[in-house]
C-alpha cells in the first residue's frame, strides 16, 4: 500500500501534558500512517521523550486523546503489538545476571499464554531474530560483557521478537561509534521495509533527514509535522535548535 494513502496507525488530537505546573506538551494534533518511518526531533528538554511516553501509555495526557492501532495506548491488546527500545538501554542494569538469549527471549513474554511453554514457534522466532540482528553468536554471553553497540542490538532484538506493528525508539544510538550507528540504521531500514511503523526520537537532525520519511519537530509545541524531514523550513529548524548556529542549516541541506 502506498505510504501516503495508508490508514493512520496513530492519531493524536489536542494533546497536552503538564507536569509540576510546567507545560511540556502543548496542544498537539498529528497523524502517523501505517508504514511510516517518523523522526521525532527537537532540542534537549523539548518534550520528545515525554511525547513518546504519552504514545506508549506510560504517561497520561492532561488533555486530548491518543489512538494507537484503533485503541488506547494503555489497552493490553494494543501494547502487545508494539516494541520499545528506550534511551541508553533504559533501566537495564549492566550487572544484571542474564545472557543475550535470555534478554531477547523475554521480549516474547506477552506473546505467550499464561501457562504456555516457551518452545516451538516462539523459540524459532527468537533464534531467527537473533540471526537477523547478527547477535546469534553472542547468545550465551552475559550482557555485562557486551559493547554499547552489541547491547543496543540486543535491545532491538528483544523489541522485535514480539513481531510488533509499531516500533518506538528513544535516542537509542547515544554514545555509539559511527560504524555501530550505520549498522543499526540499516537494520531499522529493513524493519521498516517489512512494514513496521517506526517512531524514532532523536536530536540528530541529519540522521533523521537521511533515514526517516516523515518528521515531527517539537519544542513543547508542535513546530511542524512534515512528510519529509528534508522539507522542514530552515527558519523553523534554526529556531528549534540554536538560533545562533547557521551551521546546522547548512549541514541539514547537504542531505
Amino acid at each position: 500500500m502506498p505510504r501516503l494513502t495508508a490508514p493512520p496507525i496513530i492519531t493524536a488530537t489536542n494533546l497536552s501534558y503538564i507536569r509540576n505546573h510546567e507545560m511540556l506538551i502543548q496542544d498537539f494534533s498529528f497523524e502517523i500512517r501505517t508504514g511510516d518511518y517518523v523522526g521525532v526531533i527537537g532540542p534537549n528538554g523539548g518534550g520528545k521523550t515525554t511525547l513518546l511516553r504519552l504514545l506508549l501509555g506510560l504517561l497520561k495526557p492532561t488533555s486530548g486523546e491518543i489512538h494507537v492501532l484503533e485503541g488506547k495506548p494503555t489497552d493490553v491488546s494494543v501494547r502487545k503489538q508494539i516494541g520499545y527500545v528506550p534511551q541508553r538501554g533504559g533501566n537495564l542494569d549492566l550487572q544484571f545476571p542474564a545472557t543475550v538469549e535470555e534478554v531477547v527471549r523475554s521480549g516474547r513474554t506477552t506473546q505467550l499464554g499464561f501457562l504456555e511453554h516457551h518452545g516451538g514457534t516462539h523459540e524459532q522466532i527468537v533464534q531467527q531474530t537473533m540471526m537477523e540482528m547478527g547477535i546469534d553468536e553472542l547468545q550465551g554471553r552475559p550482557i555485562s560483557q557486551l559493547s554499547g553497540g552489541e547491547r543496543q542490538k540486543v535491545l532491538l532484538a528483544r523489541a522485535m521478537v514480539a513481531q510488533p506493528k509499531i516500533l518506538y525508539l528513544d535516542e537509542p544510538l547515544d554514545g555509539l561509534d559511527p560504524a555501530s550507528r550505520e549498522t543499526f540504521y540499516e537494520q531499522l531500514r529493513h524493519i521498516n521495509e517489512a512494514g513496521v511503523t517506526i517512531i524514532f526520537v532523536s536530536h540528530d537532525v541529519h540522521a533523521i533527514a537521511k533515514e526517516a520519511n516523515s518528521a515531527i519537530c517539537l519544542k513543547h509545541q508542535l513546530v511542524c509535522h512534515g512528510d519529509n524531514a528534508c522539507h522542514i523550513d530552515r527558519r523553523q529548524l534554526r529556531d528549534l535548535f540554536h538560533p545562533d548556529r547557521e551551521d546546522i542549516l547548512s549541514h541539514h541541506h547537504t542531505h
Partner: protein
Amino acid sequence: MLEIFEFDFMRRAMLVGLMVAIVAPTIGLFFVVRRYSAMADTLAHVSFAGVAASLFAGFAAIPTALVFSICSVLGIEHLREKKILPPDTILSLFLFGSLALGVVLLGLSHGKNVNIINYLFGNIVTVTQTDLASIFLLGIITLVLTKILWRQLFAVSIDEDIAEAVGLPVKKLNRLLAVLGASTIAISMSVVGVLLIGALMVIPTLAAMQFRVGFQQTWKISVIISVLSVLLGLISSFYLNLASGGTIVLFTVGFFLFATFIPSPTNASA
C-alpha cells in the same frame, strides 16, 4: 555423623532448613537484581513487629507475622507507585516504624516475651510439627507461584518501563513479588531469625552473581549455595554447640568470599 538424624527435632530442622534454603534465594534473586535488597530487611523488621504482636495477643507467630508483612508490602508498594517519597525513605519509614511498634508491644507483653530471642536470631531446633506444616505449605505455594510467573517477573526485573509498555501488569507483579517476599520471611524466621533472614535471601544470590552467568544459572547456583550453607550450618551448630542462624549465615558469607576468588568461565577464557 548420622546421630544428628536420631533426634526428631534435628530431622524437622533439616526439613525446614532445606525448604527455606530453596525459597529464600529464589525470591531474594528478584530483590537483588532489582536493587531492592533493603526490602528484605524492612520486611524482616515488620515481621518482628508481627511476632511481638502475636506474643502480646497470644496468636500464632508465623501467621501474625505474615499478615503484618503483607499489609506492609501493600502499603510500601502503594507509596512507591505514588512516587511522593524516594523508595529508600519509604522502606526506612516502615523499618523503623515496625521496630518501634515491636519494642512497645514487647514491653506490654509482661513476661510473655521469653521466646523473642528465638525469633530474633533463629533457633531451628525449636521448630514444632505445626511450624513444619505451615512452613511447607507456605513454601510450596511461594515456589509454585514463582515458577508460574517466572517469565513475567524476569521481564519486569530487567526493565519495568519496557514491561509496562508492552503490556505486562507491572504493578500487580510488583505487589505479588512483595507478598512472596513477606511469605518467605515468615517461614524463615525460625531458621535464621528476623535479624538475619535478609542475609539468607541476599548473600547466596550475590555469591552466585560472581560467576557471571545467565539468570537461570545464577538462580541454580544461589540455591546450591543456600542449601549447602543451611546443611553445613546445622551440622556445625549441632556438633559445636553454635547458634544455628548465625552459623548458617556465616557459611553463606564464606561461599561469597570463595566465589569472589573464582574467575568466571567467560573471564577465564578471555
